[in-house]
């Protein structure tokens, strides 16, 4: 009786082997892909992820969207991921220094900053100089968040631009009422009308928000263009991660990024 049982087991094992060997080509694109991405990539990467899933029916993509600094801290504390995309090179470099990556990061998109106000414009902001008017409510992302450090850099550059008072940055920062943990929280509070203005990425003014937000452009010379690097994460599924990154860099991926307001000039083939 015992030997019969064993024979049955061998047969089943053999059968499994056949199934496995025939399934091998499809296995490359099977399973879950966990993407840790900066909050500002929410709409664009979700769209790209949908495209990737359509091409790879066996793959499910899960996103963890947060401030870049939060993502790196989470990875450091042992969170499992396959791909990391941050909103500046500083945090990606930190991730590399801390041996969290499985490959070289590549910059796949750029983003410019804009000033957003609620449509009703309660602070009566008509030009960038108005940001320094006392009593205004300005919100920015925290200084450790990429969007926050870019915003402060922009204010500093504007202070030395013609037509701006030299203490423009100081005056504007005196109007700061809250430092948010990611750029989407800035968008939310401006959209709610709680703040008079905030500084966010152009890509944060999504199609759905265009009717609710008024936008002031920051001149190119004062605009610190944000760079978005992407890399496979150590301990993740390297093959699938590489495939995803290649897709982000493909024409379809870049078109989705451009549609979301990112700068990808000259890169759509």
């Amino acid at each position: 009786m015992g030997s019969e049982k064993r024979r049955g087991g061998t047969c089943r094992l053999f059968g499994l082997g056949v199934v496995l060997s025939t399934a091998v080509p499809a296995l490359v694109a099977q399973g879950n892909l966990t993407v840790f991405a900066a909050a500002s990539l929410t709409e664009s990467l979700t769209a790209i992820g949908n495209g990737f899933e359509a091409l790879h029916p066996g793959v499910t993509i899960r996103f963890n969207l947060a401030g870049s600094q939060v993502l790196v801290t989470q990875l450091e504390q042992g969170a499992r991921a396959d791909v990391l995309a941050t909103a500046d090179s500083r945090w990606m470099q930190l991730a590399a220094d801390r041996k969290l990556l499985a490959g070289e990061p590549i910059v796949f998109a750029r983003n410019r900053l804009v000033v957003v106000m609620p449509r009703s414009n309660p602070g009566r902001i008509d030009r960038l100089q108005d940001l320094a008017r006392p009593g205004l409510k300005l919100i920015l992302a925290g200084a450790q968040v990429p969007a926050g450090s870019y915003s402060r850099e922009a204010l500093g550059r504007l202070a030395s631009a013609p037509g701006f008072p030299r203490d423009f940055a100081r005056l504007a920062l005196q109007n700061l009422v809250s430092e948010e943990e990611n750029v989407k929280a800035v968008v939310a509070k401006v959209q709610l009308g709680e703040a008079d203005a905030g500084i966010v990425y152009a890509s944060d003014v999504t199609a759905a928000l265009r009717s609710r937000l008024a936008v002031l452009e920051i001149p190119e010379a004062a605009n610190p263009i944000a760079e978005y690097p992407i890399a496979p994460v150590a301990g993740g599924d390297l093959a699938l991660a590489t495939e995803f990154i290649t897709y982000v860099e493909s024409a379809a991926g870049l078109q989705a990024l451009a549609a979301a307001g990112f700068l990808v000039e000259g890169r759509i083939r």
Partner: protein
Amino acid sequence: MTIPDRTPLGESLGRLTLLLLAAVLGLLVALPVIGLAFRVTPARVLAQLATPAVQEALWLSVKTSLAATVVAVLLGLPMAHLLATRDFRGKRALEVLMDLPMVIPPTVAGFALLMAFGRVGLLGGALSGFGITLPFTTAGVVLAQVFMAVPFLVGAARAGFQALDPRYLDAAATLRAGEMHTLWRVRLPLALPSIVAGIGMCWARALGEFGATITFAGNMAGTTRTVPLDVYLLLNENLDAAATLSLLLIVMATVLLAAMRQAGLGLFAPPRAPRLAPLPGR
């Protein structure tokens, strides 16, 4: 009377299982605290406490949580008294409403506060007419803390009011004391232990408030960045500093809870209002 099937083996296995499960829970709560303590050295605590940013956050936390507790007492005691002494239509709904902040996610509470007291909220226009702004202000922090912490005070004080021996009240009524007089001279003093327990819990909850504060009042050093918000920020910058501040919050809460236990005033401790000796023949 004897209970059937009570074998010595089953009995001791049962006891062992209960002990083991209790031990698991004890470790579940103790280990994170111990883990934090391992990251922190006394020298580091002192160094952290010396930094202006931490002092600012600490002072703001103490200030706002005490203010929130005072407001909670002023508004919470009348509500507790009402719920303890009156029956009326809609009382059940009011009870549920008073419990609500204890169970809704703090972030949801903060968002809801914005919808009510924010600039574009229900009362936002009226408030700004009076020159009052709550989001992004210290007053907003206090409001968020009151919202989240007041149920602890109402619940404890109400239990205290209700646990009074009715004969004290009968005695007061015999002496023709009015309701207000009875409240002031009989109910309040007798319910005091429960009220103090409620105040302690309310203060501890206000001190630890995070989600409603960051959503409603924002995160700004000196104005709205209390110690829990500072911990959240430091988690991205300086884990040692975050651990130190976390431990500080835990120590403050522990001291408070231990003092209350010592005085017999735990949150779920049975109220200890004095009882009259039973009358003979009862």
